[in-house]
């Protein structure tokens, strides 16, 4: 049994990549050793800013000999068959094969291939270079004049098996038995013979905490200690903690001070400055529970002066950052929010879709329209929408784009706006990702929906939709945001008509924009053409010219007519946008465990109210889980298959209607089915109207018995053409009745 130590030592590995690389390296080595026929008792890994390490214990010294027999053709088989056999088994002559006898088949050839075991050393020497060459980093690079790729330049490969170097070479870098410690405290190099020795030297003279766990613990202990001493409370930040765990080989926690005057800044600004720029932890004052004028920094050095200078240095850097922030904050507060909002008209949102000011106008109109539907005050919704984007021209958001909305809220409160307006300004960007919450206050909901719908309708109108992995305007996120806001708040919205009516606003902007350019004499024909190219706007150019002509004799009704005509041509992209929403909804419901096919089945009905769609899907799922539901689905499929077969033969006659007289003469099962269909068709109307889908499904369940009995006792393909046609009509009724609830043809099963 042998012990293996592998360390891959490089220049600083990005903190966010270390943990994954550590586990990938362990897995790759396990796979390679296992496939080569070695076994081991334990494999452990470690990682840090400059190294990935694997320890393997109880490794077999050699892989076992393998004997494999391969059956060949009969003795006397055609030459070609023998040749193929020799090639496959790696033999040069048939005399190398054995001849075996089988009482039934007679004599045949067998190749006995013996592969001798290999020394672990040789296997490792082959495996490690291959792992290094094929290793996957999120981003890798070349350096110097070499061809190898690694995350940063590779400096050393330490590979020691039972005290001996496993010799190999990767792109000119030879394996060895030396490692390095902390640059300042104990660089080394250290010659190592195995794990124990490696750990002892590095954690001792080398000043390296090898594992993430060790470093995390040191940091947490350090934080606890400095906080206890200064009566502070750490504001837990796991993401940042994991990052700093990867930034120091020898973490030392140091408490720094900041000028208390900075505490007049919004806490979000201070924390963001600390976190993103400096990777400092913020702390609260234990007594007040509010931000304290301190910060915690994790250094990579046990400084000779106890950390005094480095704490001062860090404090000075933070001061400079916060000075900047305060400069912006004061500047912004001196400017009324409305004045900022006015400036939005000078900033383009997207060339064809006008300025941010244009967008705000559209969003304000839409928010006002949506307000009653979401239970918000229309005035407040419009006000919030008008101010929602104003902070984009603020200095602070220019510096910290992450604070968009957050700063707007502060500035709105400073300006004396109602709290609901201020909160809506902050919340209208939500949800910003799968883990973000959705707005729940009605005003916030109205603005958030209006903003996202406007963006989506706009980009669809100019035909700039996401393709493949490219979604530069985060349109998928916007659509998923709409889905989540609507469903989480149970908002009833007809998406199709909302987006259709809103598209009038969007198209107006587009036309105004293009017209303005025409009047300037600086016609960007190319741009206009591109706009027109989108297909939905194949008539835009003509319309645009006509609008221009009419400007001297403005006739609102003529203009409306033009727009209406244009709108009609937009039906194509409205359907497309709706199916984009459908895809997001599917994704959302799928994540919640709903069946993909059921969602399709409900969507096929053309429903555009997301809440109703979801309820239908849920009711349908529950129904199909019952025996009645499953059997009715089977009956439906049978009916649909017969109809499809008929359609293949030739068109089914139009207006297939059921002839009651013929039914009355038919068998009892046929009569029963016809009766049940009539009854159920009438009975499902009320629950459907009341949006009681479970009730509607319960009615449908009553069809199960008659449908089963019909298929059991009645031949559809009767010799009498009239009887046959009548039965096909019954089948279409089964199909159409079920389609009132969902398109069952899209359900698997």
């Amino acid at each position, binding site marked *: 049994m042998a012990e293996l130590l592998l360390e891959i030592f490089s220049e600083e590995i990005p903190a966010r990549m270390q943990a994954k690389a550590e586990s990938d390296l362990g897995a790759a080595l396990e796979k390679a050793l296992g496939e080569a026929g070695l076994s081991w008792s334990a494999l452990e890994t470690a990682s840090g800013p400059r190294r990935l390490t694997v320890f393997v214990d109880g490794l077999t010294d050699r892989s076992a000999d393998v004997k494999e027999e391969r059956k060949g053709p009969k003795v006397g088989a055609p030459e070609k068959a023998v040749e193929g056999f020799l090639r496959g088994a790696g033999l040069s002559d048939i005399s190398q094969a054995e001849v075996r006898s089988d009482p039934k088949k007679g004599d045949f050839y067998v190749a006995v291939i013996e592969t001798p075991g290999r020394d672990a050393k040789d296997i490792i020497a082959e495996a490690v270079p291959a792992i290094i060459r094929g290793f996957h980093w999120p981003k890798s690079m*070349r350096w110097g004049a070499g061809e190898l790729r690694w995350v940063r330049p590779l400096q050393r490969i330490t590979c020691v098996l039972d005290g001996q170097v496993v010799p190999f070479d990767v792109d000119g870098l030879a394996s060895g038995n030396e490692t390095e410690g902390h640059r300042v405290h104990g660089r080394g*190099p250290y010659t190592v013979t195995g794990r124990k020795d490696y750990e002892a030297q590095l954690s001792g003279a080398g000043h390296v905490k090898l594992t993430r766990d060790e470093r995390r613990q040191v940091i947490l202990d350090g934080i606890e200690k400095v906080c206890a001493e200064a009566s502070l409370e750490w504001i837990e930040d796991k993401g940042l903690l994991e990052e700093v765990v990867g930034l120091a080989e020898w973490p030392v926690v140091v408490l720094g001070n900041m000028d208390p005057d900075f505490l007049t800044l919004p806490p979000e600004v201070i924390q963001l400055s600390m976190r993103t720029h400096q990777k400092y932890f913020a702390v609260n004052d234990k007594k007040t529970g509010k931000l304290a004028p301190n910060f915690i920094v994790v250094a*990579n050095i046990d400084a000779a002066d106890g950390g005094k200078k480095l704490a001062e240095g860090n404090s000075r850097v933070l001061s400079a950052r916060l000075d900047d922030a305060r400069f912006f904050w004061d500047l912004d507060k001196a400017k009324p929010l409305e004045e900022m909002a006015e400036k939005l008209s000078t900033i383009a949102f997207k060339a064809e879709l006008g300025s941010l000011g244009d967008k705000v106008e559209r969003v304000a109109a839409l928010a006002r329209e949506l307000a009653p539907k979401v239970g918000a005050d229309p005035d407040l919704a419009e006000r919030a929408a008008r101010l929602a984007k104003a902070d984009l021209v603020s200095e602070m958001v220019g510096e910290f784009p992450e604070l968009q909305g957050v700063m707007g809220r502060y500035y709105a409160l400073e300006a004396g706006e109602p709290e609901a307006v201020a909160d809506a300004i902050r919340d209208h960007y939500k949800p910003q990702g799968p883990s973000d919450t959705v707005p729940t206050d009605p005003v916030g909901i109205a603005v958030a929906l209006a903003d996202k719908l406007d963006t989506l309708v706009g980009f669809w109108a100019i035909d700039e939709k996401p393709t493949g992995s490219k979604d530069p305007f985060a349109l998928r996120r916007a659509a998923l945001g709409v889905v989540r806001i609507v469903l989480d708040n149970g908002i009833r919205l007809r998406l199709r008509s909302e987006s259709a009516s809103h598209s009038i606003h969007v198209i107006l902007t587009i036309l105004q924009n293009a017209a303005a350019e025409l009047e300037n004499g600086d016609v960007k024909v190319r741009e206009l053409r591109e706009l027109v190219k989108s297909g939905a706007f194949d008539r835009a150019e003509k319309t645009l010219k006509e609008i221009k002509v009419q400007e001297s004799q403005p006739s609102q009704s003529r203009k409306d007519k033009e727009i209406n005509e244009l709108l009609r041509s937009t039906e194509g992209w409205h359907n497309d946008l709706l199916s984009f929403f459908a895809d997001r909804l599917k994704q959302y419901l799928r994540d919640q465990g709903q069946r993909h096919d059921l969602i399709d089945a409900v969507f096929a009905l053309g429903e555009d109210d997301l809440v109703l769609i979801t309820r239908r899907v849920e009711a349908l799922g529950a129904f199909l889980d019952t025996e009645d539901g499953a059997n009715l689905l089977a009956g439906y499929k049978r009916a649909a298959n017969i109809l499809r077969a008929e359609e293949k033969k030739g068109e089914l006659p139009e207006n297939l209607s059921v002839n009651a007289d013929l039914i009355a003469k038919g068998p009892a099962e046929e009569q029963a089915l016809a009766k049940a269909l009539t009854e159920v068709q009438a009975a499902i109307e009320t629950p459907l109207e009341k949006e009681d889908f479970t009730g509607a499904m319960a009615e449908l369940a009553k069809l199960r018995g008659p449908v089963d009995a019909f298929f059991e006792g009645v031949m559809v393909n009767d010799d009498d053409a009239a009887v046959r046609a009548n039965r096909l009509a019954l089948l279409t009724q089964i199909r159409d009745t079920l389609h009132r609830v969902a398109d069952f043809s899209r359900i698997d099963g």
Partner: protein
Amino acid sequence: MTAPEAKSKPKSFQDIILRLQNYWAAQGCAILQPYDMEVGAGTLHPATVLRALGPKEWRAAYVQPSRRPKDARYGENPNRLGHYYQYQVILKPNPANLQDLYLESLYEIGIEPTVHDIRFVEDDWENPTVGAWGLGWEVWCDGMEVSQYTYFQQVGGLDVFPVSGELTYGLERLAMYVFGVDNVYDLPFNDPESDVPLTYGDVFLENEKQQSAFNFEHSDVEMLKRWFADCENQSNALREAGKPLPAYDYALKASHTFNLIDARGAISPTERQAYIARVRDLARGAAAQWAEQEEARAGA
């Protein structure tokens, strides 16, 4: 290897520059002078951007005045300047011990390794206007970014080989750190004990004030837009004439003109992208042509 040691503390801003010059000269770098055009960063000097391309070895170091109109603050901000200096080093191919050489250069200018916390923090550098990117770090000294350290991977949209190691020192910040000064204008520019002691403010404060006013108030945006178009045309024409070096100069002029337009806040994020794309096309085109010519010259 024994623990690293710092040299004596420098006396002035210019002392830091002189020590860096001497240090990198000793590493075999050609000590060049600043490029005589407005650039936003030392990287844009052809000695870096263009020399990073092609197969030839190259080592150079130089100070580059950098103009960033948007960062100007009328001389009122102690940390931000519209005009400042970068110290730029390029080694192609990068030597295997470049990190050590870099750290020694910090010790050379008086940074004590045993009390300061020097860290290499991931920062994938990119400069979209010249289609360049590389992997490397921001180097932090006690939480302050004192350098950008990059292994170039692409320039002008082309893969580079061999790979250059590029170091950019923010000289003012570094000096403020070394001297423990909170306001850049208080930095001793020359030896404070000399006959005519000068601070950074004596040299540059008035310039910052007037240039800020130009950047934010007096620049003629319409004129700048015309200039931009002219530079663009000239650069394209030069490239068509097979002269990538002046073509690159005019790409730089276009780039700086764009920065001036941008400082006025006169363009939207999307327009901004369009401008950047136009500059990038010029710079990429010039770089690609230069690389082609270098390959041909190396082959001949």
